[in-house]
């Protein structure tokens, strides 16, 4: 049996945030034109269907995750969004290329199917978010334990380095924050 390297990452940025390492196929996706009458939510979810082809002369420019246009997507990380995206790279029913030129009647049917699709997409987003989060009982256990440990540590800090030291104050703030969270949780229960 080979040794496994202990490469547990402590990179805070790598968990739960948009990152370029989550499998965007060399920055190219089926980019399509957004519909102006669609809600912002719709555009948020379809961020990966970027305006690559819409922009003339870009010619296959890789999509940057830190693009200012996608600044509203900070809440949604790429992993969640990619889960919604089917393997073929096209989102079903959201083939928006050249929609601008279609007649209004087709647009109505289209928007209805889109809204139902986006409802299910929204629900899937919600599910994906919930799966990524830690379960509440576990979080509660962690916070309770951390609060006990930090309260004892605060006593040690006060006795060893004094109350006015900046480390003591930092620790005190964390303890107070945890206590506040616990109180909110108890009230909600």
């Amino acid at each position, binding site marked *: 049996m080979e040794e496994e390297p202990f490469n547990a990452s402590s990179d805070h940025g790598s968990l739960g945030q948009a990152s370029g390492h989550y499998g965007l196929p060399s920055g190219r996706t089926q980019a399509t034109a957004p519909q102006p009458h669609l809600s912002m939510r719709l555009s948020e979810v379809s961020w990966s269907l970027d305006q690559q082809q819409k922009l003339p002369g870009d010619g296959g420019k890789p999509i940057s995750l830190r693009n200012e246009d996608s600044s509203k997507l900070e809440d949604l990380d790429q992993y969640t969004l990619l889960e919604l995206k089917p393997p073929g790279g096209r989102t079903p029913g959201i083939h928006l290329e050249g929609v601008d030129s279609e007649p209004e009647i087709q647009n109505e049917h289209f928007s209805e199917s889109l809204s139902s699709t986006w409802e299910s997409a929204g629900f899937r987003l919600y599910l994906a978010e919930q799966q990524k989060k830690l379960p509440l009982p576990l979080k509660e*256990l962690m916070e309770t*334990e951390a609060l006990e*440990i930090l309260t004892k540590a605060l006593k040690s800090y006060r006795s060893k380095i004094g109350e006015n030291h900046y480390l003591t104050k930092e620790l005190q703030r964390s303890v107070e924050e945890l206590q506040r969270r616990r109180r909110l949780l108890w009230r909600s229960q």
Partner: protein
Amino acid sequence: MKVKEGSFVWYLYLDKIYCLLSVRNVKALLEYFRLLDVHHKNTLNDVLFYHFLSYVTNLKSRQIRMVFDMFDCNAVGEIGFEEFYLLVCILLSHQNHLEEQFMYCHSRHVFRLLDINGEQRIGKVNFHLYRFLFNIRNERLKEFFQDFHSSEDRRLNYNEFKIYTIFANEKSKEKQRERMKEDKRNRFRSQLKKVMCQIAVSRFLRRPFPQK
């Protein structure tokens, strides 16, 4: 050494073959680490580390300080998440009686931890000092030195330590197999007794009453 029952670390699951945590467990552990990292330096200082270990285990103060010194390889007075993760894996392997398996799978890391002087050699003293963590038995060490170890100073370099871990792991597996056989035999005996008892009772009940 025991991990406190009902504590967060106690609930983590250590894989029995690789002696590591799954990604989900590591994610939860990272969140826990961040709660304890009140100064936002991605490290725990000695005070926080001390209170964490004294809460989660039944180690004494002297032992906790020894563990901290062992993990603080750079002597900066802080330990990062990687060392924290390694420590949690050691605690869980001790809890689940997988110390030999752990040492076999991660011999390089264990050797680096036990080699506190940085001499690339570890002796009986090192083993004895950290016996509460790795549960290295004296008899096994003696056996190993008798059978395998060639140099006179009775100190092991990394390759010899690796052989020792293979040896210790095999011995513990043998013992486990014997224990399982013994358990099976005991279970079979108790079942046999039960069946014999039932047969005797049923025969007794079928026998006609003696007439006067």
